[in-house]
């Protein structure tokens, strides 16, 4: 084969791959829609199962605590499974997004189809690695830090609805609980930075603490307009309040509320990226300045816990954004109502996750003082403006 012919052939293959991947994407989306609508809403099935279990236990004369124990232990176990499985998918997806943004392919070998097993292989590697503790560390602080980061990440999934009626803990104060619990991870970041006996770690930990604590405020305040409008902190009620259509075609998602919705959604999105310590706000682990920031000295599973926590926060933040601003499980058009609510919610969540991942490969890292400026001098004021505007709207509605 001639050199030029070879290049021309590669060009042809590239052109074909464009079409092939478009067909693949459309096919996957259609297949997902078809599968989801075949499965249907999960809530009646689950409540049917629960009722079946209760009936059986009454029939057989089992003690009362057996079905009760099922309801106590099964949902958290399912949640743990979701929390272990989804970050793995998000990590794989992140590597793919990184690769395709840089016009390459990413992991393609492990597992056969587009390197789907790469993350599992990495996980096995992390499991088998020795955990090295450097000299001069604060032992208990060092050892506890990954769990202090990870456990709030797990807990923050509790009040999040995964669809209509699919919620582990239907709290009346869902938004408040989520914000409060996810703020606890800061302590873990600070502990990791302090315990590592490493100047880079300490700097990273302090930066992380400063950043996360300050971004907590505009993040929570950007959710307040939604809470004010709905009149409840419960996430299930908030997502239920956004179903239906205005004038028959405009969905009642909060993002479609003029001005107020868009501003608070933008602030929520940016502050969530900052809250999860991701690029462009990744100063706590800025690898070009601080090696790896607060988790420089961690290896093996200890590192994996930080990693899992970060990606579950990304997922939890996207899920919360979808519930608060993108209407939860409500469909975009009324004729798409046959798709069950959990599929809608997952679709919106993955759209937001994609924005998170793409932001990492689009924007350069901000300077520390500018991050702080942005938080205290721009976002905070705008959240106040939005809350004020929302208050006037509510006053007008009451009148």
């Amino acid at each position, binding site marked *: 084969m001639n050199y030029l012919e070879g290049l021309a052939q590669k060009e042809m293959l590239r052109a074909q*791959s*464009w079409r092939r*991947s478009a067909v693949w994407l459309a096919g996957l989306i259609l297949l997902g829609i078809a599968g989801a609508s075949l499965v249907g809403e999960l809530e009646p099935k689950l409540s049917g199962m629960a009722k079946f279990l209760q009936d059986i236990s009454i029939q057989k004369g089992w003690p009362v605590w057996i079905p009760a124990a099922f309801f106590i232990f099964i949902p958290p176990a399912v949640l743990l499974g979701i929390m272990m499985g989804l970050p793995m998918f998000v990590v794989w997806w992140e590597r793919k997004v990184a690769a395709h943004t840089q016009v390459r392919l990413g992991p393609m070998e492990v597992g056969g189809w587009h390197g789907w097993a790469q993350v599992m292989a990495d996980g096995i590697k992390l499991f088998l690695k020795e955990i090295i503790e450097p000299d001069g560390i604060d032992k208990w602080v060092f050892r506890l830090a990954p769990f202090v980061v990870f456990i709030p990440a797990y807990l923050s999934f509790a009040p999040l609805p995964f669809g209509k009626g699919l919620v582990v803990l239907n709290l009346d104060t869902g938004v408040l609980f989520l914000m409060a619990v996810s703020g606890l991870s800061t302590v873990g970041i600070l502990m990791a930075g302090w315990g590592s006996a490493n100047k880079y770690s300490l700097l990273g930990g302090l930066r992380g603490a400063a950043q996360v604590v300050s971004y907590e405020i505009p993040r929570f305040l950007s959710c307040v307009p939604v809470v004010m409008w709905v009149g409840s902190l419960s996430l299930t009620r908030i997502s239920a309040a956004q179903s239906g259509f205005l004038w028959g075609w405009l969905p009642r998602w909060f993002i479609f509320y003029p001005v107020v919705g868009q501003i608070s959604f933008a602030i929520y999105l940016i502050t969530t990226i900052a809250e999860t310590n991701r690029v462009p706000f990744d100063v706590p682990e800025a690898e070009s300045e601080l090696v790896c920031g607060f988790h420089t000295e961690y290896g093996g599973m200890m590192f994996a816990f930080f990693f899992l926590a970060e990606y579950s926060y990304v997922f939890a933040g996207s899920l919360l954004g979808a519930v608060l601003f993108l209407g939860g499980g409500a469909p975009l058009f009324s004729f798409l109502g046959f798709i069950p609510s959990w599929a809608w919610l997952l679709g919106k969540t993955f759209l937001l996750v994609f924005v998170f991942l793409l932001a990492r490969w689009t*924007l350069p890292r901000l300077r520390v003082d500018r991050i702080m400026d942005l938080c205290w001098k721009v976002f905070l004021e705008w959240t106040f403006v939005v809350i004020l505007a929302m208050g006037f709207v509510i006053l007008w509605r009451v009148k």
Partner: protein
Amino acid sequence: MKFWDIKEIIKAAYDTLQGFLVTLKYYFSPAVTYQYPKEKKPIAERFRGVLAFHPEICISCEMCVRVCPSDVISMAWQRNEATKKKDLLWFQIDYAKCNVCRLCEEVCPTKIKSIHHTIEYEMVFEKREDFLVRWGPSTADTVTGGAKSQDWYPFTAAGRKEANQTKKPGKEVAA
């Protein structure tokens, strides 16, 4: 930074959005990379790859030995009294030292070059001794050489039998 400076905020948002559009454009454009072991990049005709040598064409003139800047090539020959020609005893290329400059190929006087570069680039050796590839009797004194009747090494890149040797012996080089 003033938060009421809406013009500035709109400009920043516009710039960020532009960045996202650029990355999205590249995100959806097909990859330029080659999945190497499965898919190989086309090689240009005059690519300088692994050196190949054909003892049946060689006239033992030692031009390549003299021109080589890295002392890669060494050889020994013997005058054949019957034909009045030089008979090649052995010929050796040290691939560890070769800097792939094509001087030996340019200087080779035979019409069909007896030493030339191929477009093969997959050259892997497991031991340092393997870098020395020798054409000639396998068990021979390096100075005097052995008998001509003994086996000659066939050319192998990386010291192994090459199934997909793209350039067959007798590559004709255009002037």
